[in-house]
């Protein structure tokens, strides 16, 4: 049976791994390659590297670390951040990444998704979506440029419309970052993920809110996501991946031991 995936997420800023709380106040966690190697060794099923400053700075970033990861890591990994064109994506894939993930540039120019699909195939194209629940309107709103507090802004897209649009354009996977839950470790947004699951025919990855082993069990059981992404619980050693996997297996979630 296809296993559910556990995906440590490494936010990369200026060549080091950082972690913020609700996308703000970043603190340095450590160097990229040793952390990636440790997670692969401990049983992570996949890794995601987000260059969180790339889109918001509008600069060309040094991606030589992608090749260093490819040399060391024997599990799949995805790179996100500042990929605005087929040429940008091609460079990342040539450096050894398995998938590329687009977020703000796809909101700025949705045809980017179709172009990436045509150039590299659906399996390479991940779309990251930053979604915020606006309690005053009762709506899930899509945000962009969330890597930079001063530029983070609401887009014209409501979440479910954008979820349908990115699939129509050829996304192979969706990572849903539930902003209200990000970094606060109170659990994944099960209501939102269950809702999106009904509209998402491609693999869906939950992101934002993991704080305890039970949160992972809940998100796989209740929201039927294909993977669960988390950062601080892994970076801070709150949950060890082998312990998490054992608990999920005991809870009858299909997991690669």
């Amino acid at each position: 049976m296809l296993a559910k995936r556990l995906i440590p997420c490494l936010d990369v800023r200026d060549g080091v791994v950082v972690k913020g709380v609700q996308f703000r106040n970043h603190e340095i966690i450590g160097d990229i390659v040793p952390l990636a190697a440790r997670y692969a060794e401990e049983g992570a099923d996949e890794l995601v590297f987000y260059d969180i400053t790339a889109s918001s700075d509008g600069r060309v970033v040094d991606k030589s670390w992608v090749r260093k990861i490819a040399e060391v890591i024997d599990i799949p990994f995805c790179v996100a951040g500042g990929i605005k064109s087929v040429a940008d994506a091609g460079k990342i894939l040539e450096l050894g990444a398995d998938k590329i993930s687009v977020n703000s540039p796809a909101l700025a120019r949705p045809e980017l998704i179709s172009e990436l699909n045509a150039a590299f195939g659906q399996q390479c194209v991940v779309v990251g979506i930053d979604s915020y629940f606006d309690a005053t309107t009762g709506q899930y709103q899509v945000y962009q440029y969330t890597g930079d507090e001063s530029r983070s802004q609401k887009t014209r897209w409501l979440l479910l419309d954008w979820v349908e649009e990115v699939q129509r354009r050829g996304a192979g996977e969706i990572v849903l970052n539930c902003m209200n839950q990000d970094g606060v470790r109170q659990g994944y947004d099960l209501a939102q993920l269950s809702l999106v699951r009904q509209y998402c025919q491609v693999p869906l990855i939950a992101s934002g809110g993991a704080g305890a082993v039970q949160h992972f069990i809940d998100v796989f059981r209740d929201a039927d996501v294909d993977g669960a992404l988390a950062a601080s619980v892994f970076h801070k050693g709150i949950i060890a991946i082998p312990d998490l996997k054992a608990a999920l297996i005991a809870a009858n979630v299909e997991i690669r031991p």
Partner: protein
Amino acid sequence: MAEQTNKPQLVIVDTGCANITSVFCALERLGASVQISADPAVIRAAEKVIIPGVGTAKQAMANIDAKGLRSTLQQLTQPVLGICLGMQLLTEHSAEGDVTCLGLIPGQVAPLEAKGLRLPHMGWNTLQVESTALQAAHPVLQGITAADYVYFVHSFAVQPSPYMLASCDYGSKFAAVIGRRNFLGMQFHPERSGKVGARLLQNFIQLDAQSLRAPD
């Protein structure tokens, strides 16, 4: 021939697809001498050949023809491993773009019949090694059990056939590993399948060309 002492053990065929680096790095981690090439002479001289590939079958076959490699690949006599799309190219025909493939292993590539499960089939899944009284498990699968997971990413698959050495189930059964004579194919990505994948690649590197027992 004296110059053969320096020849690379393994040559990865440069099919013009984007994921060659990960295959190259995985083989280097295993200590193999490896080179990427689209030169027919280099490919022919290799001890073993790997055909990687992501993207579509139509595009990959077009790249192979543009580089003039179709007949070179078809005439190889050393062990050859096709990975993912590279495996699909070893068969006769792919429905992905309705394209004639290399025709080295009988079989057809069709859309994966996921029976309502989500596509692409993306993630870690288990292998079922196929063996019968007539056909023992292939040496490339030595040490692999039904408890081992490997990493798949695909929407098209080779349909089950007598050349299927291992299968996987995702809505329906499809060929995860195929083989005929010196030609082998793996639908999953051994270069991204952790220790199990490394074992499979190591098995391939150590494969004795004379020992291939795939049905033909």
